[in-house]
């Protein structure tokens, strides 16, 4: 993370110079640094993959032989009252954690890495040195957020490891072990190992990266009428909307499975609906963006889309409900 931060500081310096200069400065160096930041991001992501693989290999939920019959009776009882089955405990293949690569602080890492890759692609497509500078400053800001508030490497998966820590401590009584298993196992099935975790969150984070690009192009559209920048923004808006809609849709059957039918109009659902509606409005008004008033209105909507995205993300922290991170 320190290497990432140092690269981000240097790229910010170049970006600020470019932002205030009428001529492009250090463009080659900026491009190399941007590529290097993406390389470090990818290297870190590979480390996260390796770490999760180690959890899968080394942290199975193994239950003492004498508890298996009791535990299976409990699971069968839970299954009888529910339409979704939790698998019975099998001593030959104890349940293992298949933790997705975007939980806890890793979600910010994945989100910002997606933005980094998009920023690199846009950097090579657009020549405007000021726009490139804006892309780089935003990337540096995200690296700073990771370093100071959401570092996934300094203490990886603290919440998960805190949950399972007691299970692996020696000297736990049989009764405590059984009770603990019945707490850990449903969460493993319906959250950590849920197949939807591999689609719903990453699609949303990719869309968040794309919306950040839309935001930057929209800010630029307010300042300068540049059709190429607008076109790039629209390309990312389409990608973002596609990922957002698909991600939201794929969350639906998962929510039915995990929470039952009564979660509609939960604050997170409301805010996601609001964000989707704002984004749809942006795509509709963009059809007439060549009208002068609509050009500014569309840009404004692009900015509101980004604010709606931040608001929707923060909803999980500040509003109660099924989706809360509190």
């Amino acid at each position: 993370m320190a290497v990432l931060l140092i690269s981000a500081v240097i790229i910010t310096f170049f970006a600020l110079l470019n932002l205030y200069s009428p001529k492009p400065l250090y463009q080659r160096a900026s491009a190399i640094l941007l590529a290097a930041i993406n390389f470090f991001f990818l290297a870190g992501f590979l480390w996260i993959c390796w770490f999760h693989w180690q959890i899968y290999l080394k942290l199975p939920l193994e239950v003492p032989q004498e508890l298996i019959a009791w535990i299976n009776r409990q699971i069968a009882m839970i299954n009888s009252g529910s339409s979704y089955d939790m698998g019975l405990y099998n001593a030959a293949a104890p349940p293992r954690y298949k933790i997705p690569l975007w939980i806890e602080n890793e979600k910010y890492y994945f989100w910002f890495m997606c933005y980094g890759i998009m920023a690199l692609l846009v950097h090579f497509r657009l020549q405007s040195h000021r726009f490139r500078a804006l892309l780089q400053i935003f990337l540096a800001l995200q690296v700073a957020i990771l370093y100071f508030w959401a570092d996934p490497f300094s203490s990886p998966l603290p919440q998960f490891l805190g949950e399972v820590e007691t299970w692996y401590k020696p000297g736990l009584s049989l009764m405590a072990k059984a009770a603990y298993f019945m707490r850990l196992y449903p969460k493993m099935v319906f959250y950590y190992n849920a197949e939807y975790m591999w689609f719903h969150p990453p699609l949303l984070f990719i869309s968040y990266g794309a919306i950040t690009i839309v935001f930057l192009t929209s800010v630029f559209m307010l300042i300068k009428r540049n059709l190429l920048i607008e076109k790039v923004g629209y390309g990312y808006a389409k990608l973002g909307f596609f990922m957002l809609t698909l991600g939201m849709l794929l969350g639906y059957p998962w929510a039915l499975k995990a929470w039952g039918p009564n979660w509609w109009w939960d604050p997170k659902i409301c805010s996601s609906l609001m964000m989707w509606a704002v984004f749809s409005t942006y795509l509709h008004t963009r059809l007439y963006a060549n009208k002068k008033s609509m050009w500014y209105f569309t840009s404004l909507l692009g900015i509101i889309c980004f604010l709606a995205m931040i608001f929707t993300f923060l909803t999980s922290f500040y509003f109660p409900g099924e989706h809360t991170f509190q």
Partner: protein
Amino acid sequence: MKSKSSYDFYLILATALVLFAISLISIYGMFYFKLAQIQQMAPAVKMSYMNRMNSFIAPFIISLILLLGICVPKRLLPTVLLNRFAVLLVAVAVLTGLVAGVKASLFLILGASLVLQLLVLILALGGSKNLHFHKKGYWVRLGSSLIHLGLILFVLDLLLYEKKNLHLFLFWITTAASVVGMLLCFYAEFVVRLIKDKQNAATENSI
């Protein structure tokens, strides 16, 4: 991008307005949920909150479905006919609402819109002089029809949530229609290029 002020432009503005209203209702729902501490209330209170939110949003969902009932097929069917159809549908829906309730009225509108959207999809698939499968417009129109069909099916699916098997089946159809629709609509140029490349390859092989 389109250039001149037109009927289309005002329909887009109306759609934007309806979507804005849906956003406002969603924000209201969030703050109401938090301030009234709905999550700590009895299930009956939560149900009444959900029903109230449904009743708030229903008129805007109906407006949205009516708007896309006019918006999407306007190049395939005469606009005058579509306007008359929309007015008639509103009148019948209001009457049904008064006689049989809001849910029946919503079912009626969704059913009629679904039939219209399916007709549009068939017309779009058939193409025309202006809309042919090797042109971008053909795929944009087809994709747009599928997205809007997906939206109608999704709302219909929400109304049928108690019928569990049908509910999930319809949901996956909705998802498929929306995904294919977005791909065709957003990446029409790529689809056209793909078709042309295939055609060129086939021509070269035959030579």
